[in-house]
């Protein structure tokens, strides 16, 4: 039986990844609505309302970045301050959603046109995955990719102007969930949680 699901995410990259993970993992879950796209503050703000809605049968999958928090369990506690209803699936990318991109070594190395060995084996231990992607792009053999992903000199932004669009096309065309979950503990856990997930 199919279940209508709300997806709550921080930004367009987590949206694209989450959609791919959900459809590959549990075809019964139909994403009908996407909320958020305004960073972690929005999700933190709305988690109590979404948990309340979960009690009333509204199923939500939320994907957030761990960022500087100690561990996913602590983040959950800090945000919700109470019991999480099983209809609210809260998954945390350690430390940022970009780690899940880095976890697909083959895919990302080919896309960025860099040697595969440059990406660390255990991606959940990378302190700043977003910065790492930008730094890897600096070494890219494709100059257009460098321009798209790396901020121009003097820019206060940490990423290039086409960062999102560029990585979205990677997620859409090249990123493989199954290659990636072998190297990311947090993604692998998300995979199993969604596979087991049966809303009440």
């Amino acid at each position: 039986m199919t279940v209508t699901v709300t997806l709550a995410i921080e930004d367009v990259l987590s949206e694209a990844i989450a959609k791919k993970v959900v459809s590959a993992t549990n075809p019964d879950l139909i994403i009908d609505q996407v909320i958020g796209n305004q960073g972690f503050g929005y999700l933190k703000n709305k988690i109590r309302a979404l948990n309340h809605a979960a009690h009333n049968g509204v199923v939500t999958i939320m994907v957030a970045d761990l960022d500087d928090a100690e561990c996913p369990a602590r983040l959950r506690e800090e945000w919700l301050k109470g019991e999480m209803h099983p209809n609210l699936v809260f998954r945390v990318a350690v430390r940022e959603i970009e780690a899940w991109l880095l976890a697909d070594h083959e895919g990302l190395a080919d896309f960025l046109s860099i040697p595969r060995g440059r990406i660390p084996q255990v991606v959940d231990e990378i302190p700043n995955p977003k910065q790492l992607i930008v730094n890897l792009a600096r070494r890219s053999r494709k100059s257009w990719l460098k321009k798209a992903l790396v901020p121009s000199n003097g820019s206060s932004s940490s990423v290039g102007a086409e960062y999102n669009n560029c990585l979205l096309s990677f997620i859409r065309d090249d990123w493989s969930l199954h290659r990636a979950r072998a190297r990311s503990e947090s993604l692998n856990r998300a995979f199993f949680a969604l596979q087991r997930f049966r809303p009440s």
Partner: protein
Amino acid sequence: MIITKLVLKNWRNFRSASISLRDRAFIIGVNASGKSNLLDVFRFLRDVAKGAGGGLEKAVSDRGGMTKLRSLSARKDPEISIEISVAEGADMPEKWRYLLGFKSEGKGKQRVFVTQEAVWRDGKRLFARPDEFDEDDDARRTQTYLQQVNTNKDFRELVEFFQGITYLHLVPQLLKYPEQLGSSRIEDDPFGQGFLERVARTPKKFREARLRKIESALRICVPQLKELRFQQDEITGYPHLHALYEHWRPNAGWQREDQFSDGTLRLLGLMWVLLDGDGLLLLEEPELSLNDAIVANIPSLIARMQREAKYRRQVILTTHSEVLLRQPGVGIGEVVRLVTNSEGTRVEEPTERDKKMVASGLTVADVLLSKVRPQGGQQMDLWK
């Protein structure tokens, strides 16, 4: 009085639609989903009801004729029909109902023919067309009873209600550069210059009082503004608004409307129409050019205006603004969400799930705007 229900057939991109409305209605939908076309129904009825200078034929030809008006997804049925219910308030019984159907003559001069027209008062039908007179005389079918003083005597209240509809979509450039743009003026529609004429037509006493109110409200948004003044050009007779801005040289800071910022002009227009008139008010994307902090005030400004109005005044607006819809007090029943597919535009009612989410503490913007994002929220790419 307010419009509580609207039923459309073959109107622009609505092949078939039924819409319930309350004191405030926020129309949302992706680009080109028909938000403005929906507002245009009410403007159309106003134009038909205008009588002199209006009427069915003019209202249709002003919109480019039947081919532009009739839904592209309409199949064999050549008729456009509009049915509208009016009541004293949102949950009150229907007081008036008006039905108008029309189509192209289908031969010769391709005149616009009334195929059906009827008015109900308190559920009782006052008349129904076509009647025996229409059978005798074809030419009668080119006019509605709504537009003729000798046929609309029994439902004049409804006629005046339609005539009192106001539409605002102020385009600052039209107001600032009317000569350069050489645009022909559209009567009654304050897109631009018409707005200043609207101000000019207002009796001096009311105009001054309103400008004082607007001035003090505007000062919060435009802190340098000191004074707002209306003046008619002595030579050309053109109406103008002047604003005094704080300046180190006294009296050097007077500016005319063509020097106002786009945001100031749009805000001025919005405030003016909120204070002006007591009929249905149609606003096209009132958030344009405005700072989010000001947009956040729009719903409560509207509510305040409705509270102060002598008669119950309805506001229907189109919007893309998240800030506007997330304001407390915006209810899920006030939002009209338009959804498009190959069969044209549908009006989507909120689902049980949407209502539960709002009841759980999410805002209408959280729940409904996420559904009017372009499919998949995909990024745009021009170079693939």
